[in-house]
C-alpha cells in the first residue's frame, strides 16, 4: 500500500523525522509558481546558441562565420580561436586517469570533432530565433573520417584513432581484487559459469533541458550565473578555472530544476560560454539547450560490455569471481566516464560472500557523446551483471534462484565488511528483504502457477534482483550545513546539496525541527546559492540526506550546545544541570525553571544578556564528514508474461523491498524508489541510445528514444526494512538511486525465465518485442 502522507501540523513536535510529512515543494511546483532557468529574464539579455557538429568524426577546416555575423539580430559569432585570443585556454578540465592518458576537452571544437553534436561554434543574438537562424548560416568545412561508434569498432585492429595520445583508443586500464587468489579459487572450483553482459547506452532525459543565464558586472568584476544544476559549488569552481576569474567573484545560483539524474553535475560548453559571452559582451546572456541538443551533446550513460565468470563449489557456494569490463567513454573522457566503470568493477560482488575476486577495466574512446553519471552511476551496471550471473549460476546448477542468493548472502552478523573487490558495506540484513519480497509475491505457489500457465501457452517468468549499492558520501567527502536561529525564533538552514525534485526542503526541515525542538514550519531551507550556503558537494550518489542532513544535524546540535550555555546563565544553573528537550532548556530536577530555545535565541542577539566569553549570535556552520559510505540494499522481484508470438512483455507483478537505512520521510523514500524503478525498467525494456555506422545519433528525439510513460510501467508493491547506517548521525543510507539499481536485472531475469521453455538463457536489453520474439524463435536480431 502506498504510504499515507500527513500534514506537518498533525505531527507531534520532535517526531517530524520518520513521518510522511507532505512535500512542502508541491504547491510551488504544481501551481506554476516554479521558476526554471528559462523563466529568468533580464533587461538587455541576449541569447546564445551552439552549432553542433553535423558528423561524428571529422577534421574541421575553415569555419566561415561571415553570413551568420550579418544575419539579423546577431551580436557575435565565436569559434575556438576567439576563446584562446581572449586569454583563456578554451578547454574544460580533463579527466587524468591513473594508468592512462588525459585528453583535452575543448569548449568549442579545435581541429577535429569526435561525436555528432559536439559544439563547434557559438552565436549570440538579440533573440533566440535570431540565434538559431544564424546557426544555419555558419559554414564549416568538414573532412570526414572513418567513425568508430561502437566499442567493437574502436577496439578493432586498424580502427580509426580518435586521439593521438590514446593508442588503440584505450584511455586507461585498471584492475581491482587479487588475481592470484582468484585464479586459485577457479582452479579449485567444481563448476564455473561464464556470461557476457552488455549494459545498453541510455540517454539521461530530464524534463528540463540544460540552461544558463549569465551576467557580468564589470565595475565589480563579478560574475553571476544562474543555471539548472545539481552542484552549484562545483560549477563555481569550474567557471573560475575555465574563465580565469577568482572564485570569490563568481556567484552560482540554481533556480528550480526539472531533473538532473547525474547529467547536470558538470557544466557544459553552453553554461561556460554563457559566462564567457556575458563577460565579452557585457550583457546578460541566456543559453537554453533544445531537446535535440541534450540528446546529442549532454552526457550519455551506462554503456559497458562485461565478461564475467563465477567459480562455484558443488553445493553452489561462490568461491571466486573474475571478469573484464570494456567501458565506453564516448569521444572524450569525463571524470565520471573514467570513475564509473572502476566503481562498477568494485561493486561486482553484490550481496554475496565471495572469497576471491579480480576484475579488470578498459576505458575506450568511441565516436559518441561522452559517457558519465546517470542515476546510480556504476552501481546499476554492476547490479545488472552480478544479478544476471547469479540467476545464470542457479540455472546451471539447478538451484532455486532465491535459494542460490540466500545461500551466498553476506551474513548480517558480519557487517561492516569489505568485499574481495574492495568495497566496504556498512550494515545489512539481506535475508530479511529477500524473505519479505518472496512472501509478498507469493513465491511458494509460483512455480505451480507458472507450470499450469505454460500448459495454456501463457509464459510467465519470475526475476530476482538482490542488490546492494554504495553511496551516501565517503570518509573523503564533506558537506557544509548552516543553521541560524533568528532573534524572533525563525530558523534558516542552508546546505550545499541541490534539490532537483527530491524534496530536500521537506526532509531537511524535518531533521532540523526535531533537533531544535521547533515547529516544522519555522524552518526555512536554502540551497542553490553559493553566496548564501556553505561549501558543499551538491546532489549526487544519494548523498544529500546522509551528508547534507548529517551536516545540518551537527550544526543544529552545536546550536543547542550554545543555547545550553546561554540558558544556564539565564536560569542561574550550572551547564551540566541543563537538560534540553522539546525546544526547552530545563534545570534538572526543577521542572518550572525553563527557558525556550526561542527565548535563548533572542538573548543571543543581546550581548548584554550573554555570559562572559560567549559570542553573540545564534548560528552555527558544520562541515560534516561521515565515518564512511552507506550501502542500501534490498530485493526486487518482477513477474512478467511474454507472448512468444509477438514478443510483447506485460508486467503481472513488481514487488520491491528496500532498506535505505533510517527513513526521514517514508513518502519521499517511496517516491524515490518508484521513480528509480521507472528508470531501471526504462533501460531494461525501452531505452537505448543508438548510433548508425557513421556515428549519427539515430535516437536523437523523443519520437525515437523511448522514455517510458506511466502507462508502460507496472504498479509497484513497495515495502521497506530499516537497518540504520552506523556511518552518519541520521542512520540514513540515501535513496536516490536504489530503485534504478535494483530494477533492471529483476525484469531481464524475469523475461529469461518466461522464455526458458524456448531454450532462452540470455537476453540483451532493451527487451523490445522484436528481441523477445526472435529469442523465442532461437534467433538474435
Amino acid at each position, binding site marked *: 500500500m502506498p504510504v499515507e502522507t500527513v500534514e506537518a501540523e498533525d505531527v507531534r513536535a520532535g517526531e517530524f523525522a520518520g513521518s510522511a510529512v507532505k512535500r512542502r515543494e508541491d504547491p510551488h511546483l504544481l501551481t506554476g509558481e516554479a521558476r526554471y532557468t528559462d523563466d529568468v529574464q533580464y533587461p538587455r539579455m541576449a541569447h546564445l546558441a551552439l552549432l553542433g557538429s553535423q558528423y561524428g568524426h571529422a577534421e574541421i577546416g575553415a569555419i566561415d562565420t561571415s553570413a551568420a555575423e550579418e544575419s539579423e539580430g546577431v551580436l557575435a559569432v565565436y569559434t575556438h580561436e576567439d576563446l584562446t585570443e581572449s586569454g583563456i585556454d578554451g578547454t574544460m578540465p580533463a579527466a587524468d586517469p591513473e594508468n592512462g592518458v588525459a585528453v583535452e576537452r575543448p569548449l568549442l571544437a579545435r581541429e577535429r570533432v569526435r561525436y555528432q553534436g559536439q559544439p563547434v561554434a557559438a552565436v549570440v543574438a538579440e533573440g533566440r*530565433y535570431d540565434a538559431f537562424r544564424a546557426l544555419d548560416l555558419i559554414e564549416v568545412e568538414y573532412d570526414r573520417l572513418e567513425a568508430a561508434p561502437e566499442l567493437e569498432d574502436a577496439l578493432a585492429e586498424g580502427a580509426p584513432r580518435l586521439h593521438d595520445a590514446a593508442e588503440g583508443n584505450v584511455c586507461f586500464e585498471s584492475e581491482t581484487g587479487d588475481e592470484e587468489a582468484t585464479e586459485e579459487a577457479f582452479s579449485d572450483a567444481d563448476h564455473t559459469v561464464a556470461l557476457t553482459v552488455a549494459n545498453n547506452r541510455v540517454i539521461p532525459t530530464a524534463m528540463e533541458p540544460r540552461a544558463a543565464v549569465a551576467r557580468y558586472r564589470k565595475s565589480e568584476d563579478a560574475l553571476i550565473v544562474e543555471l539548472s544544476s545539481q552542484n552549484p559549488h562545483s560549477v563555481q569552481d569550474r567557471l573560475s578555472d575555465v574563465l580565469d576569474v577568482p572564485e570569490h567573484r563568481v556567484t552560482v545560483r540554481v533556480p528550480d530544476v526539472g531533473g538532473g539524474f547525474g547529467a547536470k553535475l558538470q557544466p557544459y560548453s553552453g553554461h561556460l560560454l554563457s559566462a564567457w559571452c556575458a563577460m565579452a559582451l557585457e550583457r546578460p546572456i541566456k543559453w537554453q539547450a533544445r531537446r535535440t541538443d541534450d540528446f546529442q551533446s549532454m552526457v550519455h550513460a551506462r554503456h559497458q560490455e562485461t565478461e564475467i565468470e563465477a567459480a562455484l563449489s558443488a553445493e553452489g557456494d561462490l568461491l571466486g569471481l573474475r571478469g573484464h569490463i570494456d567501458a565506453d567513454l564516448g569521444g572524450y573522457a569525463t571524470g565520471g566516464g573514467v570513475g564509473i566503470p572502476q566503481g562498477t568493477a568494485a561493486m561486482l560482488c553484490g550481496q554475496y560472500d565471495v572469497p576471491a575476486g579480480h576484475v579488470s577495466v578498459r576505458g575506450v574512446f568511441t565516436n559518441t557523446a561522452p559517457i558519465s553519471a546517470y542515476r546510480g552511476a556504476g552501481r546499476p551496471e554492476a547490479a545488472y551483471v552480478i544479478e544476471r550471473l547469479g540467476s545464470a549460476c542457479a540455472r546451471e546448477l539447478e538451484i532455486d534462484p532465491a535459494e542460490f542468493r540466500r545461500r551466498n548472502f553476506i551474513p548480517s552478523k558480519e557487517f561492516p565488511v569489505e568485499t574481495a573487490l574492495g568495497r566496504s558495506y556498512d550494515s545489512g540484513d539481506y535475508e530479511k528483504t529477500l524473505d519479505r519480497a518472496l512472501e509478498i509475491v507469493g513465491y511458494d505457489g509460483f512455480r505451480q502457477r507458472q507450470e499450469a500457465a505454460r500448459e495454456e501457452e501463457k509464459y510467465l517468468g519470475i526475476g530476482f534482483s538482490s542488490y546492494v549499492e554504495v553511496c551516501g558520501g565517503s570518509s573523503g567527502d564533506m558537506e557544509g550545513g548552516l543553521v541560524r536561529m533568528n532573534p524572533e525564533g525563525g530558523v534558516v538552514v542552508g546546505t550545499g546539496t541541490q534539490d532537483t525534485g527530491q524534496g530536500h526542503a521537506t526532509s531537511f526541515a524535518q531533521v532540523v525541527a526535531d533537533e531544535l525542538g521547533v515547529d516544522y514550519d519555522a524552518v526555512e531551507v536554502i540551497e542553490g546559492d553559493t553566496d548564501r550556503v556553505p561549501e558543499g558537494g551538491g546532489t549526487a550518489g544519494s548523498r544529500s540526506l546522509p551528508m547534507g542532513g548529517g551536516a545540518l544535524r551537527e550544526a543544529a546540535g552545536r546550536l543547542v550546545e550554545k543555547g545550553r550555555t546561554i540558558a544556564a546563565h539565564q536560569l542561574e544553573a550550572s551547564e551540566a544541570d541543563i537538560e534540553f528537550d522539546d525546544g526547552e532548556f530545563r534545570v534538572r530536577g526543577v521542572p518550572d525553571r525553563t527557558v525556550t530555545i526561542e527565548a535563548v535565541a533572542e538573548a543571543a542577539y543581546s550581548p548584554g544578556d550573554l555570559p562572559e566569553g560567549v559570542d553573540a549570535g545564534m548560528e552555527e556552520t558544520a562541515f560534516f564528514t561521515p565515518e564512511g559510505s552507506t550501502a542500501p540494499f534490498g530485493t526486487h522481484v518482477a513477474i512478467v508474461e511474454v507472448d512468444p508470438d509477438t514478443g510483447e512483455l506485460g508486467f503481472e507483478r513488481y514487488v520491491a523491498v528496500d532498506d535505505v537505512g533510517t527513513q526521514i520521510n517514508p513518502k519521499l523514500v517511496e517516491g524515490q524508489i518508484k521513480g528509480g524503478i521507472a528508470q531501471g525498467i526504462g533501460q531494461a525494456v*525501452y531505452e537505448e541510445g543508438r548510433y548508425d555506422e557513421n556515428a549519427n545519433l539515430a*535516437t536523437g528525439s*523523443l519520437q525515437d528514444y*523511448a522514455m517510458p510513460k506511466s502507462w508502460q510501467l507496472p504498479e509497484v508493491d513497495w515495502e521497506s526494512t530499516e537497518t540504520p547506517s552506523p556511518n552518519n548521525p541520521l542512520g540514513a543510507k540515501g535513496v536516490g538511486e536504489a530503485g534504478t539499481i535494483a530494477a533492471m536485472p529483476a525484469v531481464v531475469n524475469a523475461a529469461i525465465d518466461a522464455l526458458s521453455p524456448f531454450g532462452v538463457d540470455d537476453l540483451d536489453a532493451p527487451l523490445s518485442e*522484436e528481441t523477445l520474439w526472435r529469442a523465442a524463435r532461437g534467433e538474435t536480431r
Partner: protein
Amino acid sequence: MYPPAFDYLRAESVEEALDLLSDTEDAELLAGGHSLLPTIKSGLADPGTLIDVGGIDDLSGVETTEEGVWIGATTTYADALKSETLAERAPAVADAIGEIGDVQVRNRGTVGGNVAHADPASDLPGPLLAADATVHVRGADGERSIPIDDYFLAMYATAIEEGEIVTGIEIPACEGSGAYVKKTSPSSGYAVVGVGVRLAVSGGEIESARVGANGAFGYGRRLGPVEEFLAGETIDGGDVAAEAGERATADVEEWELIEDIDTSSEFRGRLLEAYAERAVDRALDRAG
C-alpha cells in the same frame, strides 16, 4: 526544434481559404497544427505562409446523415470522440481516434488535418479504409468526393489536388461491427501497425468485410485476403480471428513492409498478422 519564420493568415470561410490558397505562394493549410508544426519544427517543411482554417465554423462538427456520419475536417479528435453517432456508426474510426496521441494532442489535432497529412503511421488510414469512407474536398472548381480506396497514393501523398481543401469525411453506417487495434510505438506513440476492421453481419454470418492497415506500409492499405476469408464466416465460428490474422500478409511482399530502427519488416509482418487477428477478434466480440 525552432521553426524558421513564416507568415500567418487566418481564413474565416472556406471561400476565403481557397482564395488565399490560390493567391499565396508556398502556403500550407493549418488546422490543429499537430502534424504540420512538428514537421516544420523538425526541419522537414519550410512553408512561407500558413493559412489557418481551424476557425472556420462550417468545417467543424460531427453530424448524423441519412447514410451514416459526417465528420467536418476541422473537428478535433476530442470533439469527434464525444459523438455517440460516430461510435455507433463507425466503431473502428472511433476506436482509432481514441488511440491517437494523448489528451493534449486529441484536444488540438483535427480529423481532416490527419487525413490531409496522410502519415502512414497515423491511426486513421486503416479504419477509414475499413469504413469505406469518402473524403470530400473543395477547390476553385467546386466540390468533389474521393472514395477512400482511391485516396492514399503514397507516403504523405493523397488524391487531394493543388488548391483543394478537405471539407469533411463521410462514413456510411456500419451495419454490423467494427474495431481498430494498434501496436503503439513505445517512443512516438504512432502505430507500429494498426488494423481497422468492419464487418457487415446478418443473422450471425459475416456478409462482407473490409480490413485496412496503417503503420505497416508506406500508406494505408486494405488487406484483401483477410477480407475474402471473412466473408461467409460465422461470428462465433471457432478460430475465425486466428485464421483471418494468418492471411494478413498473404499477398504482401516483405519489401512492402516498413523497416525502421526499431522494427524489421519481417517482424512488422508478424505484428500485422497478430493485430489483424486482434482487430477481427474484437469486432467479432462486439458483433456477438
